[in-house]
């Protein structure tokens, strides 16, 4: 089974977000960069499917700055075979989901795949759009929010999370899948894995090398921080029951929520 996994390097979820001087970006000094957490499920699933089939390949594709190579190396250390790094600061600075999908689509066209995996969303812009756009551009069916995957006989049977439950779908391969938490337990890169990853081939390209000049379809006007939340009052009382009573009273009379 051959898979392509699209990954994105994002700020660690612990990051305290600050707005930069331009007002349209965030301060990146001191930020720790990680592979998008949902992409780890995507990488793991591609590796699992290759192992299960006993043959195949896992290629990683990422659009990002130079430093995105670290996320690609992490995926290679987990066990992926090759990488394509669309390293293009100018393109990346303006890339919205539409432009990102165009770049990924162009890079994927030269690769072999039965399945294309992505995380269900990147935890920076939280757009959750690239899988669908990629599907349209490559003319492939897309199943998002996958929590269970089995491939056999040229098709996949997948379970996707829906509101209040799950749906079981069948889709012919090749197809695109987005990974939701619960799909698997991503493995850690082993030390030998990390050593091997250093020698695995990564193709570095500019968007123009791939023939991509897709303009973004959205314009960022500004980024703002939410109003800071202040600590409110401590609910007082002699014991837990008294505090519960005081809280219920406050929710009823002050906040008018009961």
């Amino acid at each position: 089974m051959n898979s392509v996994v699209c990954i994105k390097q994002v700020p660690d979820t612990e990051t305290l977000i600050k707005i930069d001087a331009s007002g349209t970006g965030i301060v990146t000094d001191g930020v720790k960069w990680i592979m998008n957490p949902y992409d780890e499920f995507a990488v793991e699933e591609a590796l699992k499917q290759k192992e299960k089939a006993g043959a195949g390949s896992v290629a990683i594709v990422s659009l990002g700055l130079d430093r995105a190579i670290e996320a690609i190396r992490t995926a290679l250390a987990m066990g992926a075979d090759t990488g394509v790094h669309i390293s293009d600061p100018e393109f990346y600075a303006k890339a919205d989901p539409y432009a990102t999908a165009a770049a990924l689509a162009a890079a994927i066209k030269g690769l072999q795949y039965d399945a294309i995996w992505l995380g269900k969303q990147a935890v920076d812009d939280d757009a959750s759009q690239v899988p669908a756009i990629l599907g349209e551009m490559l003319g492939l069916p897309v199943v998002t929010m996958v929590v269970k995957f089995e491939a056999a006989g040229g098709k996949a049977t997948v379970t996707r999370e829906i509101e209040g439950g799950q749906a079981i779908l069948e889709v012919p391969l090749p197809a695109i899948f987005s990974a939701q938490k619960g799909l698997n337990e991503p493995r850690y890169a082993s030390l030998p894995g990390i050593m091997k990853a250093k020698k695995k081939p990564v193709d570095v390209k500019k968007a123009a090398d791939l023939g991509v000049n897709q303009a973004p379809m959205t314009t960022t006007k500004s980024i703002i921080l939410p109003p800071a939340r202040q600590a409110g009052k401590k609910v007082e009382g002699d014991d837990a029951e008294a505090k519960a009573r005081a809280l219920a009273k406050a929710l009823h009379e002050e906040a008018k929520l009961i």
Partner: protein
Amino acid sequence: MPGTLIYAEVQKGEIKKAAYEITSKAKSLGGEVSAVFIGSGVAGLAPNLAKYGADKIYVVDAPDFKDYVTEAYVQAIAQVVDKVKPSVILTAASAQGRDLTPALAARLKVGSLSDVVDLNLEGGKVVAKRPIYAGKAYVMVEATGDPQIISIRPNSFTATTTAGIGAIENVAVSLDASKIKVVVRAVEVTATKEPDQTEAEIIVSGGRGMKGPENFAMLEELAHAFGPTATTGASRAAVDAGWRDHAYQVGQTGKTVSPNLYVAAGISGAIQHLAGMGTSRVIVAINKDPEAPIFTKADYGVVDDLFKVLPALTTEVKKIKG
């Protein structure tokens, strides 16, 4: 403002509340408001949309649409779009909306904006406000294509009834079956009437301090006492411990929620969790540890044993509710 088309999602035989919220908001922005909904045996739901301000309601009702299949729904809406020629398309950022909206936008060769919490008109174009980094920041952003396609987070706007009477039109769509590759084998939805966390007005959430899966019944009882608009949630710690399904997780790698009331029981308040619920109108924290970071964000803090506070609170809420 030129016309808006709203995709109104049908779930469990009813149009979702989020569709009414969006319809009311679109009405307040001006211009003609059309709505479309899709399903099998759902035609009778149309008048409800008129009540919230839809001038024109398009009904796509056929057995093909019994189950949600992205491609089939995209084709149907694209045909209605072709007819209505709206300049703005609004959907709910529900689980289905988040799947459908970017696929529809890609079909129409435009970009879209997901999970928007506010809309404003600037020079005839909609500028949207949407959370990024799970709500640690917001971006003001414009979709530059035509139409502008935007999914709206539930609970962002208030649904208001108006006196209007919308004209109802049934639309027969023709599907290109060769493009519909996905087959639905089964849909398993829990019978619960509880709202989804993203749509609930009250969420009672538990964390590591709940000590085990069996104790979540306490949270369910409190949610139940609050009424049908309440549900339960969980922190990442509780989900990773296997106490709760991931569908309950609130925070950066779970759901971002914005209820009227968020009760955090035994949740310390990691930055990822605070990002996911920080826009709740009122936050209550119940925790034994007075130093827990959650208290810095809580409107009401109860420093005590949650195993004593929760049952007592449930009793008090029931008393008030009568």
